[in-house]
């Protein structure tokens, strides 16, 4: 039995379009190395040059955030389900608020860099009932 890994839409170019791929490994770091051997480049999108999880990547083992389970050292077992998702906490309107305020000049420079995200996420979100 292997570990099932759910791949978000934006990273499926690395998995030939597959939503779910299988991998093996005793830790998350091992799993990502294993995945990278078959899906070259995937690991590089998830881990920074400093060797930590990318700030805007969330990884869940059986629905629990790995950052609270040891991050890359999080232990894995056969049959576990791993889900990778981009960080979009707050939903699409989080981006909307950030983008709107950034032009207002009241927000930190960091916020304005997310302006593009609002456009990106919402271009898919015409049917989204934003809160």
């Amino acid at each position, binding site marked *: 039995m292997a570990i099932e890994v759910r791949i978000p839409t934006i990273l499926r170019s690395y998995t030939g379009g597959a939503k779910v791929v299988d991998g093996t490994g005793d830790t998350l770091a091992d799993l990502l190395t294993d995945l990278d051997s078959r899906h070259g480049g995937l690991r590089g999108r998830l881990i920074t040059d400093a060797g930590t999880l990318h700030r805007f990547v969330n990884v869940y083992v059986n629905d629990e955030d790995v950052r609270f389970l040891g991050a890359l050292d999080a232990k894995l077992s056969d049959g576990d389900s791993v*889900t990778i*998702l981009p960080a979009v906490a*707050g*939903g*699409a309107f989080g981006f*909307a608020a950030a983008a709107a305020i950034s032009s207002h000049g009241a927000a930190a420079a960091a*916020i304005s860099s997310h302006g593009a995200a609002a456009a990106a996420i*919402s271009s898919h979100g015409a049917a989204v009932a*934003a809160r």
Partner: protein
Amino acid sequence: MARYDSLLDACGGTPLVGLPRLSPAVPDGAPPVRLWAKLEDRNPTGSIKDRAALFMVRAAEEAGRLRTGDTILEPTSGNTGISLAMVAKLRGYRLVCVMPENVSTERVQLLRMYGAEIIFSPAAGGSNQAVATAKQISAEHPDWVMLYQYGNEANARAHYETTGPELLHDLPTITHFVAGLGTTGTLMGTGRYLREKVEGIQIVAAEPRYGELVYGLRNIDEGYVPELYDASVLSRRFSVGTRDAVLRTRQLVEVEGIFAGFSTGAILHAALAVAHEAVRDGRRADVAFVVCDGGWKYLSTGAYGGTLADAEDALEGQLWA
């Protein structure tokens, strides 16, 4: 206390109710494991956002950013918009919400009823267009005030000063606090307060996992984490899918008679997970979780009836929390 000088004074002080039927059974002689629901739908406009809205407006007043007659601009169509509309009405401000024209009619009606003005952006442009519109309006009206709940410290402070103390007062034996992760204000404020007061308390986040449409970024670097978020406040963080959220929302009304929105179902799912772990480990647990709002605003989704698969389909592509 049951008498207040005005509706604003009636914000907070919500009941904490036990869930004897949903709390997991423990073996004879084992320590009790109990679930407690903090009924935030009992706030003036029916959601936990009243606390943040009131604190953000007061903070802006104290900082001299808001004066009677000023205009607040917020790109929101959800609970925060409704809360801000009520606070703005009672404190003498004008509220302008920017939202796509295809949001649910309940929301439009609620916001208008509370006196908010709505600027619609074309449905075809989605929130994309709403952002562009809000930007344009901001530029044209530099005197209008954006409160920006994702980065406004008064949002978290509302919970540090009210939600946290209320919980500790009503449940001094609390071992876990479980809430939803959106702006992160509830968890940051309540979590910080409880960590200072209760040794070993677990602060647990339940984050909604939406349909794929919602994650339609072009690139990981376009991700976003609210400025308020500080991971060190949390003990654990669960991602809860639509199906589990719907299942628990229905269970809550069927078993305990509490009619809540779907974000509450997601939170209950995480609360039950930690409660069952405590039973397995033979540990005492008093798990308090947040009921964010009632289910009224979500009835038109149809997700309270039919099969779970139907409900999942009905909520696909929606931000249900």
